[in-house]
């Protein structure tokens, strides 16, 4: 069966008999080259271009947030004031400078990098491709989401250039009601970013419900779609609550409405409930799509059918459901009743079940697989390792008595960095490598990729394992100084952060270099069988030259590596 040239505008009903696409060759211009004006990007409705714009924005914010992380780590190299004196004179001002740094780092990384990273940047690009669709259900809304994100990022940059924010990314009352820093612009940023996130989630739910190709039932979807779907549900149901919460906090600051500030008759713990009702699901918004990526990475690069498909799919849904029932574990020491503590502790433990199911299934997938240790796969394996640590230390914190000791220590800091960064961002970068050839049409240097992954992995563990130790020894979080006995741990941690930064800068270098001088990417460089590998790299404007039929995304039997084209070719029609 040859590849007929299709008029992109005319639809054709795909045949119902399963066919397997033959080697794909570009017939027309790709989505990257079809138009070249600025407005053709700025006003594009194409999900791929929107995804790329998101990606650029997210990576810029990652750089800014990362610089602040390095500032924080550098300051903590010594218990003495090390670099804050460059920015402030008095000890109080120096301490507050440190507060602004960690707040900026946290707020940017959470709201502008990790939450939109996988769903909005990679998800936007990949989701319609995985569905064989031409676009998401609401392309204009999609572009609107992007500009909401840009506006929200603008608010954060405004905060950054007007003296920063010192409340911590959690905006806990009563301090956030009285802090002299630019709390209201930051809250406006959160509100706007929330709606960006909601509209992305809404778009994805509708797209997955209504635009699956013929033959793709729910249980034939790639697992990334299950993860994205579960995430989208969380985004749609949790994010409005942070929206109203930050509005109420703005009103508390401006009008003193008496909801969160005890001076006006409000209840600060109520703020924590409101905040974590969103922000705990938000943590899973950060981790579930990366889990979806890892499901793809492990299966494709092991060239083996994913083990326990149904369990992985349902565990994503289970995590989404549990996410709404565990927010109280952030308030074990906030004066919550013992009964509530016990209930939240119990439900928190049960989150371990679906998470462990995923881990075991990924490992079982790798067992006896033909594993290619590509950069993407190395990130996938790193994820499994780091998420296991992050998840298990979460169980420590779910124990009420232990949490009383560990609450607000570096143990918590290390735990959530293992989950949000060691897992979330690592999988994001793994997914970036996995889909980079598809997005850009260029191959990056595997040699430098593996080295960079190694640096990131070693640097990450070097940064955060000492934090587990000093946290359990009682080092509290969010202080610009510390007792001398913690100095060694902090110095190790700071060194680790430099190693990690070196890895990321190396990654940035070889990825940018690949755009300039990278080899042309084949359609299917890794041997995947989900639909995005059945179109050219990069895809044409409407994604496919022929409306594709659903494939079995985890059937790798018919793919054979062709060393000449460095492409995986379909050998037989199945």
């Amino acid at each position, binding site marked *: 069966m040859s590849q007929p040239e299709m008029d992109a505008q005319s639809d054709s009903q795909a045949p119902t008999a399963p066919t397997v696409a033959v080697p794909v060759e570009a017939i027309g211009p790709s989505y990257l080259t079809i138009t070249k004006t600025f407005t053709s990007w700025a006003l594009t409705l194409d999900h791929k271009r929107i995804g790329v714009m998101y990606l650029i924005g997210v990576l810029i914010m990652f750089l800014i947030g990362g610089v602040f992380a390095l500032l924080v780590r550098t300051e903590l190299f010594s218990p003495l004031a090390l670099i804050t004196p460059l920015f402030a004179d008095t000890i109080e001002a120096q301490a507050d400078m440190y507060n602004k740094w960690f707040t900026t780092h946290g707020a940017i990384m959470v709201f502008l990098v990790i939450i939109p990273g996988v769903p909005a940047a990679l998800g936007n690009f990949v989701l319609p491709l995985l569905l064989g669709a031409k676009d998401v259900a609401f392309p204009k809304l999609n572009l609107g989401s992007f500009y909401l994100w840009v506006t929200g990022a603008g608010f954060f940059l405004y905060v950054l250039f007007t003296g920063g924010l010192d409340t911590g990314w959690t905006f806990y009352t009563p301090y956030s009601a009285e802090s002299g820093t630019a709390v209201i612009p930051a809250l406006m940023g959160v509100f706007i970013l929330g709606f960006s996130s909601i509209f992305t989630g809404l778009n994805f739910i509708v797209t997955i419900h*209504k635009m699956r190709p013929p033959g793709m039932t729910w249980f034939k979807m790639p697992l990334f779609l299950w993860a994205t779907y579960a995430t989208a549900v969380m985004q749609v149901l949790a994010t409005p609550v942070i929206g*109203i919460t930050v509005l*109420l906090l703005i009103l508390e600051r401006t009008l*003193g409405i*008496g*909801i969160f500030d005890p001076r006006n008759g409000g209840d600060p713990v109520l703020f924590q409930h409101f905040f974590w009702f969103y922000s705990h699901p938000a943590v899973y918004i950060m981790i579930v799509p990366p889990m979806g990526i890892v499901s793809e990475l492990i299966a494709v690069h092991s060239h083996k059918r994913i083990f326990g498909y149904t369990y992985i799919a349902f565990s994503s849904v289970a995590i989404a459901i549990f996410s709404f029932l565990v927010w109280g574990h952030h308030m074990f020491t906030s004066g919550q009743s013992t009964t509530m503590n016990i209930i939240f502790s119990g439900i928190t433990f049960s989150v371990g079940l679906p998470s462990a199911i995923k881990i075991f299934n990924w490992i079982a997938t790798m067992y006896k697989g033909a594993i290619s240790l590509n950069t993407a796969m190395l990130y996938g394996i790193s994820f499994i390792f780091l998420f296991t640590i992050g998840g298990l230390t979460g169980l420590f914190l779910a124990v009420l008595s232990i949490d009383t000791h560990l609450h607000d220590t570096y143990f918590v800091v290390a735990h959530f960095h293992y989950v949000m960064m060691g897992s979330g961002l690592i999988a994001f970068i793994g997914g970036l490598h996995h889909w980079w050839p598809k997005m850009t049409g260029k191959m990056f240097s595997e040699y430098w990729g593996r080295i960079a992954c190694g640096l990131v992995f070693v640097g990450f563990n070097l940064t955060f394992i000492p934090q587990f130790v000093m946290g359990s020894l009682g080092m509290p979080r969010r202080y610009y100084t510390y007792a001398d006995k913690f100095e060694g741990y902090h110095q190790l941690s700071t060194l680790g952060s430099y190693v990690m930064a070196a890895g990321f800068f190396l990654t940035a270098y070889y990825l940018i270099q690949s755009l300039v001088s990278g080899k042309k990417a084949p359609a299917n460089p890794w041997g995947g069988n989900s639909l995005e590998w059945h179109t050219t790299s990069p895809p044409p404007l409407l994604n496919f030259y022929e409306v594709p039929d659903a494939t079995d995304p985890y059937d790798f039997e018919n793919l054979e590596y062709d060393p000449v084209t460095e492409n995986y070719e379909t050998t037989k029609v199945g």
Partner: protein
Amino acid sequence: MSGDAHPNESNQHAGHDGDHAGGHGDGHGHSPYQAHHFDTMKQQFEAGKLGMWLFLATEVLLFGGLFCFYTVTKSNDPELFKWGHHFLDKRWGATNTMVLLFSSLTMALAVREAQLGRKNRILFYLAVTFLCGAGFMGIKYIEYSKKFHEGLFPGAYFVYENVIDSEEARIHEQEEAQLAHADLDLPVASVVTEVPKARGLVLQPATPPTGLSSSAQELEHGEETAGGHEADEGGHAPGLAIAPSHLPPGPRPANAHVFFSIYFCLTGLHGIHVLIGMGVMVWLAALAMQGRFGPGYFTPVDLGGLYWHLVDLIWIYLFPLLYLVE
């Protein structure tokens, strides 16, 4: 392919008597309103509808935070609401409820007419719905401005003293300026603390001058006999008059301002939604003017209608929770 231009079956029947001008007909060619990335109009319609329902879910959750604020405050301090609702006029609230319920009917009729493609009737019903929204906002304006006059602002700007001042001003006029300015300047705090159990407590200063005292008794008397709804009647209502029904029985709760925070947050956010809904009506009317709607394509009216019904529904909850709470 490309055949099914019908969003759903019931509209196939409606298609025959439609005078739709969009050129999208029964079963041949693309509807001009079909986006390129959808295979069929049916798929497009269903996607739009699902998207709208999801959006409405987010709206419910957005208001959910405020309802949570209400619930927490009420369970901590039930007296606050028993006290505060006296400041809300049930008659205006009930009128607004009827206005919005009626507008829901006209909105539903507008959707029906859009399905039939009867342009003039669509415009008529959209206009009625719009006017209902405007009427609702007008009544809200009356209610809000009265509270602003009285100083019943949310939170820190709450000045209960204004209620006292304006009430005293009214009595002052009524008694033909018998009171000296010294009386008006009585410290309010002492009034509240010294006579905590008095009905209409603010009307009884520590050493009431005869004129004020008698008028206060009159007021109490009137309230008892007429059920507290003698509001503006009796021809003694100058500009800042406060209906006696506005002066609740019992002492003012410590967090009185929180009641008005809740009132303004809930009705304010709802009012913003009504305004957005009115904007949607204008937009729909503009589309209808172009003859866009008919049996093959009425998605915007349908979705706008869903939104409008949700806005109504939220008010259905707000009215009893705030006005009829006792």
